[in-house]
């Protein structure tokens, strides 16, 4: 095992990796931007190094500075987390040159998976079903012909794609030329490569992905699936393990798991990776893409398998053989993750900046919080709005849902707007509870209610009136004990103290 690991990330995922290292007895090195001096990852790591100003391109995306810190601190491995440099093949290459282990796949595997079209062709050759569409890399001007063969509606996608950029839904032939031009421009701007391909739209599909582990000795296993259909603008909002569909169809799970391993093998994959599939209503599944990193939603898999995926990543990277065979993997119960982001669900999920003035995290049985924030923290707009992940485990999906509702009620984040009201309403939705949803559910069939419940309206009205009354009494009070008049002290406090004295 490594002696010292540098974590080239921030926020909750940096903490997640630090904790795994601590539990393996491995020292940790944090890097931070000027905006993050007081962040939890800096404070929880054994060492911390400033790498630049707040913008990511000047700090968390600076391969040169991170490699330099790894050298100075004597780190023998680097964990990239997700986002930032996690899927940039230049990063493992730079690690290789510096003779530092990159905790992730080889750069070649990242490059291969990064070309979405090439990955599609590779897994197709390996016998994994792909959605009908572009069969080989062709110039954009020939895509019109492919589109005609595939039929509408269809997706125009960027070859170098990711995060919904360079992606267009095309409903009819007359929309195609404009969509191609727009997607090309967007892909060129986002990835420096404008190449496009075409995929038929799979209607009423679910997004179901498989977690794969592969060691450097050619052993591959999968840890089952995650149900990630609840998305908004291709951003996942809630994830579960297992998927309600596969729970009812063990054979389908086995087939998809085999396909996932085939795809990973075809890509020459090593370490933890994810094979994303679309699953249509007739239970046909299609390869979507491969993610060559730890996923945000990895905890739901951990909760149902008992396997610590980050520790496995570190073990694999240090050259060890997988500790598990496929037959060792058991799925127990049901796990749900809500991505708690500093976004306003009532206002198009616009990012919300500000200081967290009050924070109370849920706890108790079956609740796990992966958080990167603390009371008093300033949430800036420099980085991803994900502030925490709330994960619950339950004996059954029903118990997990009820537990998540309980945990969301306990969660108090004040000072920034968060997605918690969205999650609460989603969990109350009967279609969600019945497991009836697909990737378009949130955008097309779920409406966030602005209405406030009548009874709670009365309660909040009462509280506001009581506080206004007390403030008024305080302001008007012709008399008040002098020693108690510390600045900023509320009248409530005084009452409490007086009562305490009288007891």
């Amino acid at each position, binding site marked *: 095992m490594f002696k010292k690991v540098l974590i080239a990330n921030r926020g909750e995922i940096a903490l997640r990796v630090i904790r795994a290292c601590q539990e393996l007895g491995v020292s940790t090195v944090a890097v931070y931007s000027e905006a993050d001096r007081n962040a939890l990852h800096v404070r929880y790591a054994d060492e911390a190094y400033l790498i630049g100003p707040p913008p990511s391109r000047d700090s968390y995306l600076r391969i040169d500075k991170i490699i330099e810190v790894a050298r100075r601190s004597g780190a023998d491995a680097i964990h990239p987390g997700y986002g930032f440099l996690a899927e940039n093949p230049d990063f493992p290459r730079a690690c290789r040159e510096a003779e530092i282990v990159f905790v992730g796949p080889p750069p070649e595997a990242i490059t291969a998976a990064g070309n979405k079209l090439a990955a599609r062709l590779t897994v197709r050759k390996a016998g994994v079903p792909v959605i009908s569409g572009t069969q080989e890399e062709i110039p954009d001007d020939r895509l019109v012909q492919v589109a005609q063969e595939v039929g509408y509606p269809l997706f125009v996608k960027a070859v170098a794609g990711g995060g919904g950029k360079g992606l267009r839904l095309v409903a009819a032939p007359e929309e195609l030329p404009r969509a191609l031009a727009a997607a090309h421009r967007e892909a060129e701007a986002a990835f420096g490569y404008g190449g496009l391909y075409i995929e038929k739209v799979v209607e009423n599909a679910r997004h179901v992905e498989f977690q794969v582990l592969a060691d450097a000795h050619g052993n591959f296993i999968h840890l089952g699936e995650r149900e990630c259909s609840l998305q908004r603008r291709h951003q996942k909002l809630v994830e579960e393990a297992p998927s309600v569909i596969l729970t009812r169809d063990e054979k389908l799970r086995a087939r998809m798991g085999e396909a996932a391993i085939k795809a990973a093998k075809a890509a020459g994959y090593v370490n933890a990776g994810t094979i994303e599939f679309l699953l249509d209503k007739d239970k046909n599944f299609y390869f979507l893409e491969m993610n060559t990193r730890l996923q945000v939603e990895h905890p739901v898999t951990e909760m149902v398998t008992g396997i610590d995926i980050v520790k496995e990543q570190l073990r694999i990277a240090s050259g060890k053989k997988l500790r598990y065979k496929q037959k060792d993997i058991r799925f127990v119960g049901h796990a749900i993750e809500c991505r708690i982001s500093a976004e306003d669900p009532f206002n198009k999920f616009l990012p919300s900046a500000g200081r967290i003035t009050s924070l109370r995290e849920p706890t108790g049985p079956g609740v796990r919080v992966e958080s990167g924030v603390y009371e008093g923290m300033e949430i800036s707009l420099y980085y991803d709005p994900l502030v925490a992940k709330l994960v619950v485990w339950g004996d059954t999906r029903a118990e997990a849902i009820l537990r998540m509702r309980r945990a969301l*009620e306990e969660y108090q984040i004040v000072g920034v707007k968060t997605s918690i009201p969205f999650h609460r309403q989603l969990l109350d939705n009967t279609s969600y509870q019945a497991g009836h949803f697909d990737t378009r559910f949130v955008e097309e069939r779920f409406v966030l209610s602005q209405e406030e419940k009548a009874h709670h309206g009365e309660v909040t009205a009462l509280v506001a009136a009581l506080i206004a*009354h007390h403030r008024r009494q305080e302001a008007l009070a012709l008399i008040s004990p002098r020693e108690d008049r510390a600045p900023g002290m509320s009248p409530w406090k005084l009452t409490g103290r007086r009562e305490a004295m009288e007891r």
Partner: protein
Amino acid sequence: MRYWATVGGHEYSIEIDSENKIVIDGTPHHADLQSIDGATLYSLLVDHESYDLVVDREGDTFRILLRGEMYTVSVEDERTRRLKESGPLQAPSGEVVVKAPMPGLVVAVPAQEGSSVEMGQGLVILEAMKMENEIRTPRGGTVKSVKVTPGQVVDQGQALVIIG
């Protein structure tokens, strides 16, 4: 004291008689509101129902987090409602006689004749029941007259300061 609180388009009439006796839209309730951290966190027991709330206040607007949901409440009292009804805002007028709420010894008189004071500002320090108590002005204005001097013993109800 009567208040009107509006939340989610609905207006509630709330009468607060004592700390605990409340009448909402004509129905009496027992309420017990406690500050937990001296800042934003409160616990309310109303007719034994328990609520944990986080309250952010800006003037008469309250943003209240309750069971994961955010509510925005605006509050008016009788005065602000009357002012609103009677048109543009007017400054309060007339003289106020600030009286001693209890017998005691005048320890100090921060109020100075002719100076202007803000609502809640201290006028006289009165020692009573072995404690120093600050007597404050119920509204802003000008100190018209100071009726007492340090060292003086005053009776309950005796005029201390006149605010104009």
